[in-house]
């Protein structure tokens, strides 16, 4: 034991966690009411509570991160602390992977098992006979057993362009990281900015694609299992891209302030990991939702 041990920083009391808990309370309680009010088109307080919850959450995030950044900048964190953050972020990303797995799992089950059984596969001859004898299993599911029809979203065209954009953004982010590690600040700033812009382009095209789906293809959230998996997978992915872009935007501001050094840049690293993760999700999504 001849190593020297650094301090492990245990913060003093902090108001932010309980503010965050109140924020989540307002969000959950507000959303729980808001969903009922919107779907029944009744007036109510849900929307306001929900909005207040997000406001408190944003307030909390600013306060909490300000504390963390101040502590980090004043040198209170050791290498061990940095490992805690990195490991925490990795496990968080694993939990996100599992969240998407639930929806991919639903997609696979629906395509491989549920549709097959509805058309009489396995031991379900009578299910088919008695429920929807006209039903034909196909993917994309263009006509549901109940008779809702839709058109499929093609894999070429816009989705392919979007794939290229997102993959490029991961590459530019990598070069930003290289720039950070080699202290090439110009490259860092430029590449980070390009990454964020590519992310925003992706999101705009995604919105355009949704409009196209709703108006031209008749592909909606309510158009059966194909539409369900399409919108929930791409929708949650889009929410993650949005969050990733916000994270990278704040990282960009911190870069402008000169916060990161080649060997101390956890926030950059975490944002980059998150961005790459979102990119990988998109690749799986492109293959399984659009192509196959």
């Amino acid at each position, binding site marked *: 034991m001849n190593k020297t041990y650094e301090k492990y920083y245990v913060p003093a009391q902090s108001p932010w*966690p309980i503010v965050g808990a109140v924020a989540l309370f307002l969000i*959950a309680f507000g959303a729980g009411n808001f969903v009922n009010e919107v779907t029944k088109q009744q007036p109510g307080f849900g929307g306001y509570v929900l909005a207040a919850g997000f406001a408190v959450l944003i307030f909390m995030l600013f306060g909490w991160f300000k504390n963390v950044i101040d502590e980090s900048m004043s040198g209170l964190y050791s290498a061990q602390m940095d490992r805690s953050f990195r490991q925490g972020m990795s496990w968080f990303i694993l939990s996100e992977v599992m969240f998407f797995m*639930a929806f991919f799992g639903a997609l696979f089950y629906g395509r491989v098992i549920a549709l097959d059984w509805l058309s009489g596969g396995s031991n379900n001859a009578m299910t088919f006979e008695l429920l929807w004898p006209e039903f034909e299993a196909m993917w994309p599911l263009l006509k549901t057993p109940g008779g809702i029809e839709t058109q499929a979203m093609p894999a070429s065209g816009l989705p392919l362009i979007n794939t290229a954009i997102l993959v490029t953004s991961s590459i530019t982010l990598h070069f930003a990281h290289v720039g950070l590690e080699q202290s090439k600040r110009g490259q860092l700033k430029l590449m980070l900015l390009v990454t964020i812009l590519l992310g925003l382009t992706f999101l705009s095209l995604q919105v355009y694609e949704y409009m196209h789906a709703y108006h031209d293809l008749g592909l909606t959230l309510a158009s*059966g299992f194909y539409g369900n998996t399409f919108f929930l997978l791409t929708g949650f992915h889009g929410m993650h891209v949005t969050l990733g872009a916000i994270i990278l935007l704040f990282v960009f501001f911190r870069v402008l302030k000169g916060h990161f050094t080649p060997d101390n840049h956890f926030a950059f690293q975490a944002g980059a990991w998150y961005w790459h993760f979102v990119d990988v999700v998109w690749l799986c999504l492109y293959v399984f939702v659009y192509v196959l």
Partner: protein
Amino acid sequence: MSAVVTDHEHDHEHHDHKPSGIKRWFYTTNHKDIGTMYLVFALIMFFIGGTMAMVIRAELFQPGMQFVEPNFFNQMTTVHGLIMVFGAVMPAFTGLANWMIPMMIGAPDMALPRMNNWSFWILPFAFLILLISLFLPGGGPNFGWTFYAPLSTKYSGDSTALFVFSVHIMGISSIMGAINVIVTIFNLRAPGMTWMKMPLFVWTWLITAFLLIMVMPVLAGAVTMVLTDKYFGTSFFDAAGGGDPVLFQHIFWFFGHPEVYIMILPAFGIVSSIVPTFARKPLFGYASMVYATSSIALLSFLVWAHHMFTTGMPVFAELFFMYCTMLIAVPTGVKVFNWVATMWRGAMTFEVPMMFALAFIVLFTIGGFSGLMLAITPADFQYHDTYFVVAHFHYVLVTGAVFSIIAAAYYWLPKWTGHMYDEKLGQWHFWCSLISVNLLFFPMHFVGLAGMPRRIPDYALQFADFNAFISIGGFLFGASQLIFVWVLVKCARGGEKATAQVWEGAEGLEWEVPSPAPYHTFETPPVIK
């Protein structure tokens, strides 16, 4: 590995002072404060969920409808389940993890102390939402804690959205708690605390935390699909749109089965700590315990469909899930064998923690055996959805998980409060609980095998005698827990001074710090032999 000092410039002067007043609890970053809050919260929820169980047992005391409407009865079974699983057992284990893991591995605190406090404070709010939903027009969730579609989608009330979002934030809390535990264990062990020197409670919690991170997001996905199916026109669980209600069960149980191990693995860790102490022998087969725990965790991902044998899966799937389920009996058997072998020729004494641990070993094994019966596909066709299932999972959850939590509370109370608990009252608590819990759950096996369905407020006349008996057992078990509260309050207020080691045979870092444990422990890393 580096380490471990908690102070920094500006709070030097408050060092080792507990902040006072309500702010201490709202703003705390101290793992012991947060652990205490988790444990107190779990106890309160245990009594709220327990009160609901009393309502259920009062209604079932005799056939016919007595006290409550069927819809309210369904809400009671649903919310009783949700509260006991997510509000009592899981937070109690997280509280124990918070208190004990940093002390057991020689860490100054949890790795991410502020997030730790956030994880806790989400819970009271989440359960507030769930309890508020009971008072909505149409009532609270009434579809069972497993919220099967289409009960939770087509046929559920307006409170479903509140249910969904409260489960979402409970999940956020669990995931953050699990990340904290896992990072603490990976990164904050004192120098010399190698993997195979870690106490088993730490090992079992490490694996539990991994399971939580893997499956809580899947639960979030399941409730999200329920939400969109109910409110936004999707048809994940509706065959008319190309979905399948059975898909819900697959997703739910992919979460749900690892979840039951989340609620029992820390219990294994607790019993593996208590038995060696009171047998005054080292744990038999430490390494095999670690491997058995890991195998149980891995297998837990391959057995979910044994909850669904009667849904009409292909025979191949039924057999696959049957054999995988039975395979779990092997590592579980290793554990029971090791506990018994630890006691073999030990110099045993029978203080309250040991009594609860012994009861755990016997009664959890009964629950395990009824689990094996349920695992047999053709037999399960008879047992499915009967009181036999209720008997099975209450043996593993009440005499398993809850008994282990009570054992842990008695075992570590002197370390937490600095006082010995009242041994005589504790023994009363144990014997009253032991007898009443068996009156309560054992006859459920018989009525279940005879065909009494679960979750129904009324039943056929031939089950009347057994049900009256079961209800009396239930009321007695509920009343017995009041003795526990009495013991806890008494011990918190005073009592015989506890030494640092507390128990003659106790070994481990947590027994080397004074009792009560100082507010900050191991600011400099301890030396591990």
